[in-house]
């Protein structure tokens, strides 16, 4: 801060209008950034909060029940209208209802309104009138609700058991069978167990009275979760919210990416980025060492250095084109001809996949790592090198024992920046191997465990796909917000780490460079 007397001495003269416009541009940029981040945070996290369900009575006597989404002015400026998410798509074909505010006569929030999350058809909203249990017993009122909750817990346990059985017992056996193994007996036992579980899930249904007077019969095995948002206490809501966030992070997508979670996309992004950093770190460091320590520091090296710096500014889509042309069509096509001749019309490596995507992104982030490492190497004073050499070390020993340890924070910074950049890149991936929906993650218990030729899901592409290619963008939006928030958080954390490391680096080696 300036001393007070100094600032007072300048005050009467003023700084003129330009200074205020300049200050305003700082404020405007910060405002835009804040607006973007808070939009993502509020919409992304707010989606999981159980919203109250309103029962709306209209002028003409019709009733509807739904979560209020938003309110906008009518185009002619004659009033406002509200959007409700009413669910029950199987009854009236619509999931949303626009209602003019002027037509609403009463809004209430009855405690007995039930929101069902179903496997198909999205949500159902209504009052629980009756529940027929597995044994055929008919329950009504609170007893029905209690029985429903109990049954849902059982169903969830059964579903988990079935999924575990399928993923860990049956699928590996099926693959072994395809490979010619003799596992018929084990498979038959597992299949019988699967049928048992399936049978245990069946039976029972519930009857829901919808707000407009209709009736909806839902088999219990179709129901994933049921809640009564209006009857929930704040701690209950918080628990539901936490559970929703957890499911978003840990489950796979449902209903054409408009519902469910993003676990495969997280997995794919992380795996791809890890592979990429394994590829980019050694090569980037190698190139930087060559440029800074080995190469003759002449005109050519300077030109190469400028060229490498400039490659960091080349659009990512160009790298994607290179990846598609050279890795996928060139190398991948050749590999297919040599090793996967048997399956040829359908390509193995001659199409986009995990390996090619990682390689392309490694190439894309190579300049970042090279530049950062080189900066770190250039910071190390020559005395350190000369001292090591004078004590009789060879160049290799000087590099590995003295120079590289000192440059490690710079290398780490470079790699983290590279990871942050790679995690957010989507355009090149669209060309070299990202998939809208990949049923199998690229890692499983099947040899060779890591399937470099498979396509994978990616958080960034998931955003693009769900927001622009989905059939029902409106219902995908909350999940897109949540995914965007997740991606931004990951990248912010990575960048903060890089900034912290760089700070650490400059305080640790600052004294050395000042000569």
């Amino acid at each position, binding site marked *: 801060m300036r001393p007070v007397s100094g600032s007072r001495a300048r005050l009467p003269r003023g700084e003129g209008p330009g200074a205020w416009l300049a200050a305003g541009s700082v404020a405007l940029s910060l405002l835009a950034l804040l607006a973007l981040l808070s939009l993502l945070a509020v919409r992304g996290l707010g989606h999981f909060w159980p919203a109250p369900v309103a029962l709306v009575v209209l002028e003409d006597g019709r009733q509807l029940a739904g979560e209020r989404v938003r309110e906008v002015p009518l185009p002619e400026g004659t009033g406002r209208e509200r959007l409700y998410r009413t669910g029950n798509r199987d009854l009236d074909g619509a999931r949303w209802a626009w209602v003019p505010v002027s037509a609403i006569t009463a809004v209430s929030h009855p405690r007995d309104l039930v929101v069902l999350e179903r496997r198909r058809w999205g949500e159902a909203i209504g009052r629980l009138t009756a529940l027929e249990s597995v044994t055929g017993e008919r329950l009504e009122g609170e007893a029905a609700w209690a029985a429903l909750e109990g049954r849902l817990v059982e169903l969830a346990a059964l579903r988990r058991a079935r999924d575990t059985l399928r993923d860990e017992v049956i699928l590996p056996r099926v693959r072994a069978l395809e490979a010619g193994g003799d596992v018929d007996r084990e498979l038959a036992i597992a299949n019988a167990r699967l049928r048992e579980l399936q049978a245990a899930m069946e039976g029972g249904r519930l009857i829901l009275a919808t707000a407009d007077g209709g009736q909806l019969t839902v088999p219990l095995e179709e129901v994933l979760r049921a809640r009564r948002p209006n009857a929930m206490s704040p701690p209950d809501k918080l628990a539901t919210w936490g559970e929703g966030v957890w499911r978003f992070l840990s489950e796979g997508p449902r209903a054409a990416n408009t519902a469910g979670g993003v676990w495969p996309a997280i997995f794919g992004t992380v795996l791809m980025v890890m592979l990429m950093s394994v590829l980019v770190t050694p090569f980037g460091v190698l190139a930087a060492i060559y440029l800074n320590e080995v190469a003759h520091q002449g005109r050519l090296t300077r030109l190469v250095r400028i060229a490498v710096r400039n490659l960091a500014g080349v659009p990512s889509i160009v790298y994607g084109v290179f990846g598609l042309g050279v890795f996928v069509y060139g190398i991948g096509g050749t590999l297919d001809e040599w090793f996967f001749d048997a399956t040829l019309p359908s390509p193995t490596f001659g199409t986009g996949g995990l390996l090619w995507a990682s390689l392309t992104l490694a190439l894309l982030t190579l300049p970042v790592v090279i530049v950062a490492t080189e900066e770190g190497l250039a910071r190390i004073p020559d005395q350190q090198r000369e001292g090591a050499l004078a004590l009789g070390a060879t160049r*290799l020993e000087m590099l590995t024992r003295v120079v590289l340890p000192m440059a490690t924070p710079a290398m780490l910074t470079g790699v983290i920046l590279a990871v942050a950049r790679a995690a957010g890149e989507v355009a090149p991936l669209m060309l070299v191997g990202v998939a809208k929906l990949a049923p199998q993650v690229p890692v499983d218990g099947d040899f060779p465990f890591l399937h470099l030729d498979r396509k994978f899901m990616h958080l960034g592409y998931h955003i693009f796909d769900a927001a622009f290619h989905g059939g029902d963008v409106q219902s995908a939006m909350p999940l897109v917000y949540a995914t965007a928030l997740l991606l931004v958080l990951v990248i912010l954390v990575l960048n903060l780490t890089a900034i912290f490391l760089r700070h650490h680096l400059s305080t640790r080696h600052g004294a050395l460079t000042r000569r």
Partner: protein
Amino acid sequence: MPDSSSPPSIRRRLRQGRDRLATVLVTAGGIGVIAALLAIGVFLVVEVVPLFWPTGATETISPQALWLSLEAAGDPARYRWDPTATLGTDEAARVSLVPLAWGTLEAAAWALLIAVPLALGAAAHSALFMAPRLRSRLKPTLELMEALPGVVIGFVAGLVLAPWVERHLADVLAMLVLLVPGLLLAGGLWSRLPPRLQQAMPLGWAGLWLLPWLLLLLVAAHALSPWLEAWAFGGDLRHWLEVRLGLDIAVRNAMIVGMAMGFAVMPSVYALAEDALSGVPRSLAEGAQALGATRWQTLWRVVLPAASPGIFSAVMIGAGRAVGETMIVLMASGNAALMTWNPLDGLRSLAATIAIELPEAGPGGQHYRLLLLAALLLFAFTFLVNTLAELVRTRLRLRYRRLGGGP
């Protein structure tokens, strides 16, 4: 040569051998990596050549088809990008790259129009006026802003900002009208404040305490917009634009792309411009201030001229980023290959075209090679622009060193 069987000598030879091996490996690896990087340009050129040079594999097209007008052929739209429309027919494909280049440059121009004033203003403020403590926080914040992925910005621009702007066109206009007078008003009001309040809100922290003022301006713009619409545009701005000016209005248009990409490009321009401004030797600025110049006069007359090559290279880098940005344009522009001056109409850029069409274009075909040509154009443009910027920056560093006092 001493006794070669004595252990120290063997060890020394081993060490030297290892050293030589490592040097060879590092050299080979380094050259290999750099060659792989530089191979991108070579690959694009090699793949594009058959488009113009008959090799028998692909049918060639004349370079004129890429950029000459179709007017003679009686086509209403003079330039057209439509490489797949003629698959069944024997008509020649219309492969003019002009509308795509137009869209790319238009989007970049709008982005720069928004990003450059913001970035330069912010850079000037933080180099000359800002409190050091705030400045050391602002730089990493804007670095984080630079790291925001394009797909997130594009999503917000295309699905949130674009529909909002469509509904509130007049609000946006009112905000634009109010922004500059509003900020000047803030300055005027500030100079009337009692000194105690002025010290509580110094100009060095204006970047923060102007935030509520900007929000206030936003609210004012929202309140004023119906009045503005009624007074100047006969009650409905949209209608007025469509009927009186004959403009087509698309939801996702060049202005939205400009805003989103301006937001994305601004931090990198800021970072470079701030470096250039704060790298000017302090003795120059202090000399000017000692002679009685205000800080703004110092900036305008002394610091800015000295740093102008750095500012230029910052803008160049920004242009390179804006031209190559894919996801934002893809998601916020509507991707219609139009050629208009109308900022409220859609556009289609080279990068977005590659992203959309390349997965469908079969390898080796004409369409594929055309898209590779588009990639080559992008590569060449950004590479040239960045090289220019880098050379200018190197010059600048030398100049600062000559002016003395530089690090």
